[in-house]
């Protein structure tokens, strides 16, 4: 851990979610420290995506607390809610770029409409973010004209433009063809190296080993194991995490 | 005042409208049945009519879909006497409704037929189905389900457009209402009540058609 002695940047306590009579999250808690990168691992349906969406209030939890910098948000107060979401960036598995807007407009629309930035200022900022993800030459293209990897990089630029304090990434590479994964991971890696605080659900094991500060293994709505990747993924550690990871690696046909 | 309203409603308006609604139903039912039948013929010709019949059927559909029903009725009732063909108001109205709704039905029938993937026919042929059996057991059951929502909607439209029979002096629901309203100058009340009559007809018909659709629903088919 990088900064364990300080108070957490974001604190999640006792989050529970019930949907359609099924418990999706069962009292999940985690502390996220500044500059930290946490990785969520686990079988699909285990609650990773729900947890991430709860952390941005896209799904309202039935019980539990979320605090950002010691401040609690009332999700029924629209102003507080929107303010909170601006500080917490979200990356979706299927990108969710706005299909009627060019890449640069995708990045600038929230700056203009939410932040109230002027047109040129917003455009300059958006171009800066696009060049940060290596896409300044694609600024005028529409989402349908971009590859999956490019779409995901635009969506990262879109989130970064809001200067988020925390980024939540929900399996950002799962919907991509294998040859497009690395261009997105490269962008995320550079974010991590620049000290962005992140929580990411992923099955990219090499990436996790190299960059995660902590791995959380989720199953049936609970975090059942957590620790550094070294501990959890050590050969012969006998953890569920290791077990699960060797299964995916087997399927994907590469070595850990 | 209130009792006067009530007497008007019960003694004058409702009996007249009930007579009208009977006439409306006499217009709607044959038009719906025969319109659908003609629509199936036209739609099939549009889909499979070959070089000669499908342009003809397409032209028919375009013509009747591209012009207002009221003009079609006027041509039948006021126009054809110019060349010596006379229809009674009722006959003119029903003929007009049949020809017009057939054009609309044909659109859905054609779509339903064309939506059937080639593989379905190939598979049937591979199993030894004759052309006729393929049509009866494979194509029609699928096409019918695809066309049903559209055709059902068309029948609901027909209920509403049956009000146009009034313009060729066939006095159904709307016509009767117009007579009562003109005699009493109570346009708001009369046409409110007529509106309720139509709403009831349309709502019952849509409900029945939706139930039919549900009955025939196959999981995963049609999306």
């Amino acid at each position, binding site marked *: 851990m990088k900064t364990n002695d300080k108070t957490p940047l974001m604190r999640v306590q006792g989050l529970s979610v019930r949907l359609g009579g099924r418990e999706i999250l069962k009292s999940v808690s985690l502390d996220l420290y500044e500059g930290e990168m946490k990785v969520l691992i686990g079988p699909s349906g285990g609650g990773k995506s729900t947890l991430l*969406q709860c952390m941005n209030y*896209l799904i309202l939890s039935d019980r539990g607390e979320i605090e950002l910098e010691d401040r609690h948000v009332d999700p029924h107060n*629209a102003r507080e809610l*929107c*303010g909170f*979401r601006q500080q917490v960036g*979200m990356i*979706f598995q*299927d*990108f*969710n*770029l*706005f*299909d*009627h807007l060019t890449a640069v407009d995708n990045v600038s*629309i*929230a700056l203009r*409409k*939410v932040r109230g930035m002027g047109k040129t200022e917003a455009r300059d900022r958006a171009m800066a973010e696009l060049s940060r993800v290596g896409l300044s030459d694609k600024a005028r293209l*529409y*989402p*349908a*004209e971009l590859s999956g990897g490019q779409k995901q990089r635009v*969506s990262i630029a*879109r*989130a970064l433009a*809001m200067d988020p304090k925390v980024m939540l990434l929900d399996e950002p590479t799962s919907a991509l063809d294998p040859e497009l994964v690395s261009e997105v991971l490269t962008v995320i890696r550079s974010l991590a190296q620049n000290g962005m605080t992140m929580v990411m659900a992923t099955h990219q094991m090499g990436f996790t080993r190299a960059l995660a500060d902590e791995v959380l293994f989720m199953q049936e709505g609970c975090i059942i194991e957590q620790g550094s990747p070294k501990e959890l993924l050590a050969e012969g550690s006998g953890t569920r995490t290791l077990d699960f990871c060797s299964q995916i690696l087997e399927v994907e046909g590469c070595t850990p | 005042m209130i009792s006067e309203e009530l007497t008007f409603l019960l003694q004058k308006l409702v009996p007249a409208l009930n007579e009208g609604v009977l006439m409306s139903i006499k217009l709607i039912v044959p038009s719906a049945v025969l319109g659908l039948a003609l629509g199936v013929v036209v739609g099939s010709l549009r889909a499979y009519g070959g070089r000669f019949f499908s342009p003809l059927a397409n032209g028919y559909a375009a*013509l009747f879909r*591209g*012009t*207002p*029903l*009221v*003009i*079609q009725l*006027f*041509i039948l009732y*006021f*126009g*054809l*006497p*110019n060349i010596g063909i006379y229809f009674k108001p009722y006959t003119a109205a029903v003929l007009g409704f049949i020809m017009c709704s057939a054009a609309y039905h044909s659109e859905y029938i054609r779509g339903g037929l064309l939506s059937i993937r080639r593989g379905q026919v190939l598979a049937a042929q591979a199993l030894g189905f004759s052309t006729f059996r393929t049509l009866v057991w494979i194509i029609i059951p699928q096409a019918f389900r695809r066309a049903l929502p559209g055709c059902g909607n068309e029948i609901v439209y027909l209920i*509403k*457009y*049956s*009000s*146009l029979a*009034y313009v060729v002096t066939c006095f159904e629901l*709307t016509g009767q*209402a*117009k007579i009562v309203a003109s005699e009493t100058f109570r*346009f*708001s009340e*009369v*046409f*409110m009540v*007529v*509106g309720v009559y*139509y709403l009831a007809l349309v*709502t019952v018909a849509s409900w029945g058609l939706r139930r039919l659709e549900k009955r025939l629903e196959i999981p995963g088919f049609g999306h």
Partner: protein
Amino acid sequence: MNETLTVLLDALPFVLQGAAVTVTAVVGAMFLGLFIGVPLAVGQVYGGRAVRFVCDTYVWFFRGVPILVLLFLFYFGLFNFIGLNLNAVAAATIVLGMTSGAYQSQIFRGSILSLPKGQLKAARALGMSDALAIRAIILPQALRLSIPGWSNEYSIILKDSALAFVLGASEIMARTHFVASRTYQHLPLYVSAAVLYFLLTWAGVAALRVLEKRVRIKGYVH
């Protein structure tokens, strides 16, 4: 035959003036329907229980009652009742517009529902309020998707507008009827009117196709 041709040629300018009235009424009704239909659709999709009920009831009423009945109801009844003194063309335009609002709302509703759920989610995740997300993200996409439905709606309103003659509105149908009842050349006159409607339908649909191409987004297929 010669006599027929003379009648038709004499009637042409008179009926064409009616075409201008028809087109004005139809375009007016389309826009009125747009202004009514968009809020109705948004209410039906995103509204609370009460809002949804109001919107659904409006749609149910205007889709369930024949235009002819609505024209009589509003022109001779309700408009007078609330002290509104409208001429026949204006009244017909408003009634057609209100009805079209109900139908257009169904087009927009379908378009909104066909958009991926992630669009709204992504907008919210950026801190947009729901109102802003609907305005800036959902509607621009939904309205584009609605243009084919809109051109269908145009051809329906155009045909329905022929019914305005029952109020005495001086559009194509009324003028044709007027000439026919004086010259007894019903058949050629009504057939010509039908051709005129056919051309107007075709022209409008072509115009909307141009609009659709204009606002098209590259590679955007749905």
